[in-house]
């Protein structure tokens, strides 16, 4: 006792959270560490390791949250992480001292299979029976005392979502620190010992002289074991030894490929016999009733489409009032700060037309982001996401992807970055690559501001709210419509993948916790606001500067003279009348003059000149130089177009300070030269083309770098070139075909 307390303060221990997917590991991790790892009601939310710290008594412990796995024979990159951590193969982590095994209490037998495999690693273990609240409703009873007696390790019932069990878990680890405990060992048959001895005698892992038991098991049982690459001998030689070892099992009447599961399950059945009492009549809960509707042959598909439709309709129409408030806030700030800066026109312009206009135009879309993430979080936490994968698998399998691609793709509707990370759950590397390649086509939330701006200004006023919602829905569909054939080509001709198996567990429906939904919204909202303060702010200043310089103030006298002369020539007013009207800054004539001076300024600014150089590239899509500049400026991050257009129109004097909205500025924007002079720039075909361009283009530095990381530079370059080309073609087609019909 004394020695334990004496050495305790200096020690750091490592604890790994292991378990099947979707059992509540991350929820418990959050409870124990106070961190906020993402959780969700579908298998495969966590795809990489995450470390947090906690105190157990006065020992500080590193807790490692890991992806879920069904077995140690890893099939996908996320599962491989589990084995590598357990074997201490990551230098910065080191082998864990303890395992917290998180089991779904309502599915004990299946969950214990992995526990039994992990036991071969001889790491002391605590068994957490999480989701204890779901045991009774599933028609089961678990005899805890009997189980504790049989398993020989601490067994803790817990309810992660209510933070029940955390204290007991810590106490259990403490007890293991005093006396390590292990699951009862399997009694392997004699042939198994012969096989293991043979492997141990003939093979060794690269940097060590021996194989651990779990490594030997993987070599013996797995068809495509990654361990074979790690051995001192060549893979061919190793394969030979492995098949000799398997011979011992065969002689004993066992099929080596199924022997492991058979032996473990036999062991488990011995351990839990009589522990779980089932009442089959009770087993059909709410989940079955809901699924009878949502997965119904006819209704199921309709419900799926209707649900998606409602999401986009809500995103479009619920945000209005809040947007107005934000917009008013922007105008108010401009009115408050404006007069104070009258003495320094350049700073005034930087603050009012640059920062406030640019960042403000962007921030207006915060409510939409929040609403979208509320829905996404609801779909994920309720358990519907896995159903969506179930429904869509047929469609995806046709193009060479599978239902497992669905979750990454759906995540990409929020943001392609977590989406691409989520592809780590896909077993087959080629399917995974194909999914990564098409993920950026899903319409991420960063595209939302562009759609809302265009639809709000040009679709809704003309066609009404119904069409507005429909257009938004369709814009989210365009990327998918391109992604499916793209994936087909990639999997059929470039990667030549064979059709992939699809095995997935359907979770039970759950009422989402308000706390989780709220946190998701807060997180997404905060990301959005942070973006406004960083990249948007930064690019905003650059855009402002390139539009503000070089100054054309020296031309203003000349312009004034021509302006007055023109007005006099119209013979409506005398020169004196005109001059006195211009004295008053609120008169119509003053406005007209300001507009003239402003557009002269931006036309001759650096950005204006650049815009005219690049505009011909986009001319076939009907874009003027301002849109072209907006498009170019948005390559680092697509939202930038909003702030860019905001500044262009504000400096050009087009944004009426009272109404203060970019939307109106766009509506009033006209061609100033060329054959279309005097015609509106933004016609329906141009607007649709612009939205299609943004739907398809690869305009996100962060996505490109995550593709480099997950798939390599080659794929990132391909993705960029392919998406940009398609985007341009799409916009040109919309304009060229559209103008023939409108």
């Amino acid at each position, binding site marked *: 006792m004394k020695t334990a307390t004496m050495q305790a303060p200096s020690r750091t221990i490592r604890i790994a959270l292991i378990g099947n997917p979707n059992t509540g590991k991350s929820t418990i991790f959050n409870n124990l560490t106070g961190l906020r790892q993402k959780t969700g009601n579908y298998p495969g939310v966590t795809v990489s390791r995450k470390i947090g710290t906690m105190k157990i008594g006065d020992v500080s412990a590193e807790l490692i949250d890991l992806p879920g796995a069904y077995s140690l024979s890893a099939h996908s990159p996320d599962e491989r992480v589990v084995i590598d951590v357990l074997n201490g193969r990551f230098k910065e982590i080191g082998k864990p001292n303890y395992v917290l095994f998180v089991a779904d209490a309502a599915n004990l037998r299946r969950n214990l299979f992995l526990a039994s495999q992990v036991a071969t690693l001889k790491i002391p273990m605590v068994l957490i029976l999480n989701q204890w609240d779901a045991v009774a409703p599933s028609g089961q009873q678990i005899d805890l005392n009997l189980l504790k007696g049989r398993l020989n390790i601490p067994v803790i019932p817990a309810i992660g979502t209510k933070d029940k069990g955390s204290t007991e878990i810590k106490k259990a680890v403490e007890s293991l620190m005093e006396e390590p405990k292990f699951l009862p060992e399997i009694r392997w048959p004699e042939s198994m010992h012969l096989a293991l001895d043979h492997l141990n005698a003939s093979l060794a892992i690269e940097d060590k002289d021996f194989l651990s038991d779990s490594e030997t098991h993987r070599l013996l049982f797995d068809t495509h074991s990654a361990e074979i690459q790690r051995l001192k001998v060549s893979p061919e030689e190793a394969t030979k030894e492995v098949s000799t070892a398997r011979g011992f099992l065969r002689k004993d009447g066992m099929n080596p490929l199924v022997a492991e599961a058979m032996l473990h399950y036999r062991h488990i059945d011995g351990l839990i016999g009589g522990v779980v009492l089932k009442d089959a009549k009770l087993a059909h809960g709410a989940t079955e009733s809901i699924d009878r509707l949502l*997965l119904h042959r006819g209704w199921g598909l309709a419900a799926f489409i209707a649900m998606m439709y409602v999401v986009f309709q809500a995103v479009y129409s619920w945000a209005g009032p809040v947007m107005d408030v934000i917009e008013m806030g922007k105008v108010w700030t401009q009115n408050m700060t404006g007069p104070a800066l009258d003495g320094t026109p350049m700073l005034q312009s930087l603050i009012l037309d640059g920062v406030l206009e640019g960042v403000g135009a962007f921030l207006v879309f915060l409510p939409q982001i929040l609403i979208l993430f509320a829905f996404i979080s609801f779909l994920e936490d309720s358990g519907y996401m896995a159903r969506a994968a179930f429904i869509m698998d047929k469609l995806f399998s046709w193009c060479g992807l599978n239902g497992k691609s669905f979750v990454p793709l759906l995540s990409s509707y929020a943001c392609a970055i977590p989406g691409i990370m989520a592809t780590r759950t896909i077993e087959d590397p080629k399917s995974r690559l194909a999914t990564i390649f098409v993920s950026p086509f899903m319409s991420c939330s960063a595209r939302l501001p562009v759609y809302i701006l265009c639809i709000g200004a040009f679709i809704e006023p003309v066609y009404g709210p119904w069409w507005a919602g429909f257009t938004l829905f369709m814009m989210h569909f365009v990327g998918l419509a391109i992604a499916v054939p793209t994936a087909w080509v990639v999997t059929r001709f470039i990667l030549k993948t064979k059709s992939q198996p699809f095995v997935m567990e359907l979770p039970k429906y759950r009422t989402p916790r308000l706390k989780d939904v709220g946190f998701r919204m807060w997180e997404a909202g905060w990301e959005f606001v942070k973006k406004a303060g960083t990249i948007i702010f930064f690019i905003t200043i650059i855009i402002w500067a390139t539009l503000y310089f070089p100054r054309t103030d020296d031309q203003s006298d000349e312009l004034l003279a021509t302006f007055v002369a023109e007005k006099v020539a119209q013979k409506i007013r005398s020169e004196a009348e005109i001059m006195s009207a211009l004295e008053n800054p609120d008169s119509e004539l003053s406005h007209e003059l300001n507009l003239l001076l402003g557009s002269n300024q931006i036309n001759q600014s650096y950005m204006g000149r650049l815009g005219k150089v690049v505009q011909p590239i986009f001319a076939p899509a009907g874009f003027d130089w301002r849109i072209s500049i907006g498009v170019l400026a948005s390559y680092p991050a697509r939202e930038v177009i909003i702030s860019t257009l905001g500044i262009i129109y504000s400096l050009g004097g087009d944004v009426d300070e009272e109404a203060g909205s970019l939307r109106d500025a766009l509506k009033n924007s006209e061609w100033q030269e060329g054959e279309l002079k005097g015609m509106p720039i933004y016609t329906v075909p141009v607007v649709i083309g612009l939205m299609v361009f943004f739907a398809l283009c690869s305009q996100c530095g962060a996505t490109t770098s995550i593709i480099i990381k997950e798939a390599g530079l080659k794929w990132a370059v391909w993705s960029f070139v392919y998406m940009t080309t398609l985007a341009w073609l799409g916009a040109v087609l919309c304009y060229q075909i559209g103008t023939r019909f409108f």
Partner: protein
Amino acid sequence: MENLLSLKLGQLARVKDIRTENHIDQRILSLGIGKDVQLKVCKIAPLGDPIAVEVDGAQIVLRKSEAEGILVEPV
């Protein structure tokens, strides 16, 4: 012998043998679908494929092409 696809929706059966491609075998086994286990087909996707089978209270989604290799005997 019958395979999983010949079962009616909700009909209880016992697994006799699994004959799919090797590494899928392992996957299915680790999900608790093994010899002598009782299961039933509980859901069919609206588009006809995949299906979901219920084992030990958990529901596992499989494609029909994989389900074909799971040989069963109704109980």
